[in-house]
């Protein structure tokens, strides 16, 4: 947990390029700096291929930067091995993808509890899962398979799955990208409310202006650099 002096997340000079050649062709991120305090909500926007998802993957420890540093709760992620990074993803970070990536073979409740398998599911986990699912209006869908749900419902299950281990940071990659307008609005409401109620820091990458505007801070990724757009 961060103390009063330590931001929840800090990026300093983060660079990333694809392939072996660090030339301009493969450069996606070029010296990105960012500081995010606990409980904040922020949106990153930008054109397709600008590197938004890459930045999110680096923050979410799915990728490592080719240069620069990332600190989560004061811990330099570069100093951690894969096993420690997996533990951080499991306990401190929650992911929401554009495609919900629910396991088709598991029920709604089981999908939510999947992250708890890493340390062993407890009765408290089960209680929390049910409470959160009730919170998102899916208490009557606990035993349904993802195939029996609408797109909006699936995405809400994915949100609950991301929150099951009470993460400090929630990362959402185009969370409304595959939803219709009504479902998108509902999901945006849900994310904002959860940010407020659960105190979880929310970073969302999106094309959707409506969703971006619901966030407290907004940034744009353009030409491999991050710039604030709040003004």
């Amino acid at each position, binding site marked *: 947990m961060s103390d009063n002096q330590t931001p929840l997340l800090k990026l300093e000079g983060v660079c990333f390029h694809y392939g072996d050649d660090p030339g301009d062709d493969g450069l996606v991120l070029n010296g990105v700096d960012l500081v995010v305090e606990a409980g904040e909500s922020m949106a990153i926007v930008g054109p397709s291929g600008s590197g938004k998802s890459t930045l999110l*993957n680096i923050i*979410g420890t*799915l*990728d490592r930067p080719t240069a620069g540093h990332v600190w989560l709760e004061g811990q330099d992620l570069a100093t951690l091995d*894969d*096993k420690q990074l*997996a*533990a*951080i*993803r*499991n*306990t401190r970070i929650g*992911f929401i*993808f554009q*495609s919900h*990536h629910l*396991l*088709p*073979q*598991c029920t709604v*409740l*089981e999908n939510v*509890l*999947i*992250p*708890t*398998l*890493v340390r062993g*599911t407890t009765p408290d*986990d*089960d209680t929390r899962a049910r409470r959160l699912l009730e919170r998102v209006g899916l208490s009557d869908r606990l035993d349904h398979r993802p195939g029996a749900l609408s797109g909006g419902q699936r995405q809400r299950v994915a949100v609950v*799955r991301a929150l099951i*281990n009470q993460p400090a940071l929630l990362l959402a990659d185009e969370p409304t990208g595959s939803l219709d307008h009504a479902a998108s609005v509902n999901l945006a409401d849900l994310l904002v409310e959860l940010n407020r109620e659960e105190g979880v820091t929310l970073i969302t990458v999106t094309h959707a202006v409506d969703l971006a505007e619901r966030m407290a801070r907004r940034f744009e990724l353009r030409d491999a650099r991050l710039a604030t757009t709040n003004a």
Partner: protein
Amino acid sequence: MTNLCYVKRSLAYFWRTNLGVTVGAAIATAVLVGALVVGDSVRYSLRHMALQRLGDVSLAMQTNDRYFNADLADRVAAHPGATAGVATLDLTAVATVPGAERRAFQVHTIGVPHAFWQIGGEGTAAIELGDNDIVLNPRLAEQLDVATGGTVLLRIAKPSSISGDIPMSNEATNTFTVRATVKAIADADAFGNFSLRAEQIPPFNAFVSLSLLQRRADLAGRANTLLLPVSAAAADGALPVPEDASKDRDERLAEVSNAAVEATWTLPDIQAQLRELPKRGVIDLRSDRVFIDPALATGAAEAAPGGRVYVTYFVNELRADGGKATPYSMVSTVPADSDLADDQIVITDWLAKDLGVGAGDKVTLNYSVFGEARRLKKEDATFTVAKIVPDEAPGGDRDLMPNLPGLNDVDDLGQWKPPADLGIDTKKIRDTDEKYWDDHRGAPKAFVTLAWAKAHWRTPYGVVTSIRWPLADHNRDDIAAAIRKAVNPAQLGLFFRPVRDQALAASGSGTDFGGLFIGLSFFLMIAALLLTALLFAFGVEQRSAEIGTLLAVGFTPRRVRRLWLLEGGVLATIGSLIGLGLGVGYTKAVLWALRTLWTDAVAGTTDLRYHAESMTLIIGAVSGVLVAVGTMWWAMRKQARQSARALLSSRFGLETAHGKRGKRRWGMWIGVGCIAGAFALAAAMSGAHGEELAGSFFSAGSLLLIGGLCITGSLLRAAGAGTSSSHAATAPTIARLGWRNGGRRSGRSLATVSMLACAVFLIASINAFRQDPSGEALERQSGTGGFALYAESSLPVYHDLNTQAGLDQFGLYKDDVAGVSFVSMRLRAGDDASCLNLNKPQTPPLLGVDPAQLAERDAFAFSGTRGDNSGSKPWALLAANDAQPDQPVPAIVDGNAATYILHKSIGDTITYTDEAGKPFDVVIVGTLTDSILQGRLVISDTQFKRRYPSLSAYRVFLIDAPADKVAATSSTLERALADVGFDAMPATKRLAMFLQVQNTYLTIFGVLGGLGLVLGCVGLGLVVMRNVLERRSELALMRSLGFRGGTLRWLVLSEHWALLMLGLVCGVVAAGIAIWPALSAPGQHIAVTPIVVMLGLVIVSGVVWTVVATIAALRGNLVESLRAE
């Protein structure tokens, strides 16, 4: 939520894919379990056969040509802890049916008492045998084509107390005939296959009444085999020997029984006699076998004080310097402590007068020593007369003359009919000699020193003819007791062997059919595992996003792998359990095939029974699970290395191959290099022969295959990268597009091509090792040794058939056998050590041969020799220790038999027991390549006679004959030597008999491999389906562009048929090189039909599966796929 819950959900949801994985694991397990259970079944069947042939017999004493008193059985039985045994007389015969052509050689004629049938095991009915009755076992009845009530003639070797090699025995009387009516055919359950040999093929058995056989063989009251069943005491564990954890029941029973023999044996049991000769004032020990066994002679001489050793010898002539000569006399020895010198002689009054000599005069002895095959070598020795003694003076009496058959009993020397080989000219016998015979019988006329006699008159059978003790100092019983105490009867052949233990050990440790069938089913198993791997990998690919999700939510890759392997483990376990059931069916199918189609692989053993040990099933099932899980781990190792980001991407696994130009070029150059190397190797080794040639071309074929696959891989990568000039320069066609698609997943395509090519290559090229003996039949350096015929005789042949005397013996003229020569060999029987015996032989038969005869012909090809003799005459190695009796006996053996049957190599030893019960080591000094001598160990004749002097005659013959007279020579010899059961066959036929086993294994490998290949084609179908499903939206796009359904199907099929044909072409061309020597050599006949059938099956199967898969994958509305995209 638990891991198990997750696994259960996954298993149920992805049941289609999982079903395929389970089926693959089930087939692999079935093949593995089946192979192991075939091993169990063969072992069980051999054990069953071993127990059937032994009945209740636990121990056996076999004295071969020594005949003990049959009441030894009763004496042993009276000993505490021992059991009542059954004494039998076992002689070898040739069996015929009067008026019929059929005959059987090597017939075990067993004289049995009524009690014999009581030790035949549970359910054996006693058969009362009268003098005219005979009982046959089914094999002999079938060979003679005779049934109950039929008449059988047996010609049997008449036992002689004197070795047939000694010319004093009269070979003409050495056979007799028994004519009897078949009373019953006793099958295996009725103890009819009784045998003490560890062989699964029953011998030819003929049972007759013991008393009849004893009478006809002039062996009243005698036997040469004593069989002991397990005693009640032994069964209860109440043996009077201490419990010893290192010894089993039968070993302890053997100890008790051998102790019983030591306590109860008598001199008549070893054909020796202890007589009181009051007139001479001595107790006299002598042997019915003329010479006292060395072990007995040594022991007896030291048993009681005052014993005097005599050597009494028959000499041809005693000659004085003046020319006077006395023919055919006995000469004996003076006491060892006498002051006579070795060049001095003592003569009787009679001889002094007859020769006209006195003390100080010279007398020359002319005597014969025993040479090979009843040949005598005459030698002279001159002595100075030291003393003249009265006729039949004390210590020089007529009782010193040994018991020479045909001479001792004649009243008149004129009645004596000496054997022709002795070279006696009866015309030389004068009236004065007749008078001496009338007055003094065979009393010695002269005496030399014991040392000189032992040095010059020693024979392989001993030298001492008599030992005497003064009657005044001893009585006969005391001397007998002292001898029994001093001599170990085991040294004279009186000892029990734990035959039951040995039989069970042999049945359990022979050819490992479990391992063999794992090898033979290798491709089937690999194909099933590849199918498992393929389906599991497809399942993993299908669920790659799921893996990405798990990684994203905090699972480590290791944990994901474990979770998936748990899922795979459940599938493997289910598959394995199904495979157990299938495995039982597979075993039964294989056993059926072994009993019918592949009977040569088990040497004609048709009594194979299904049997599975529970531990084997457990091992098979667990191995099936482990192998399947291992395969799955291997299959998912690629996905496990991917990052979560890549796995979450929907485009994972659909990237086009981007083979680097450098890598493609390397592949091409390596390919070209391999192909050039293959042709260079083939050209360089085209002059080689036999296995060297086959091995070289197999290597060349392998190189060609590797080269072909390298080039294929390079072309596929080029097609995938779209850089081929042909693609760039010409307009695309459907076929070209198909080829390019094949390159998109170049790894998967190359794997498909490689699997097909390797399988086709191996299954086809393995035929290169199929051997046909007719090709090099007449070459000395071949498996026949260049000999035209191989023959065995049931009864001994004492003469050298290369000599006129030998031919005369069988009424043959020189013209009958013009251009024919023989290499004759002595035989010490044992457990067959050829591939025709599925048991592990304990002591293989020994052949005694004159190494020079094989060396001068440079016969047989050697696969290895000890030391650096490979370049010289390896047969000379046999004679290396001829002069050193204490050193191991060098032996040469067939290489395959050494490796696979005896599990021995050059330098290893096998321990035998010689005729005197003394163990000796035989060391392997050379191995032959695929020879007709398979199954036996060849040692030098000198060593053979030293160890087995009684087995003196020839029994095995290698025969050179003119190429155009082989058949005529064979029938001439068989006719002339019919009385000794001379059985000749072309050497190539005997070699083919052995090679047929190997060839049948190759057939089995081909059939099971072919099945594996067909299964591999199912895998090809799956690859097709997977490829199409992955590209469904792309195909939908083409459909929307106006391509017809048939065109799209052709697009898919052309891609995969190209892979199928590439695999076949690579495999067939490479195999063609590998089997070229076998195809082109004269006389070689490769079975092309099975290869063509197999290839046809592969093509048909491949086409069918790709068509089915294409139709299945392209059905439905493709355009929907595009919308989904």
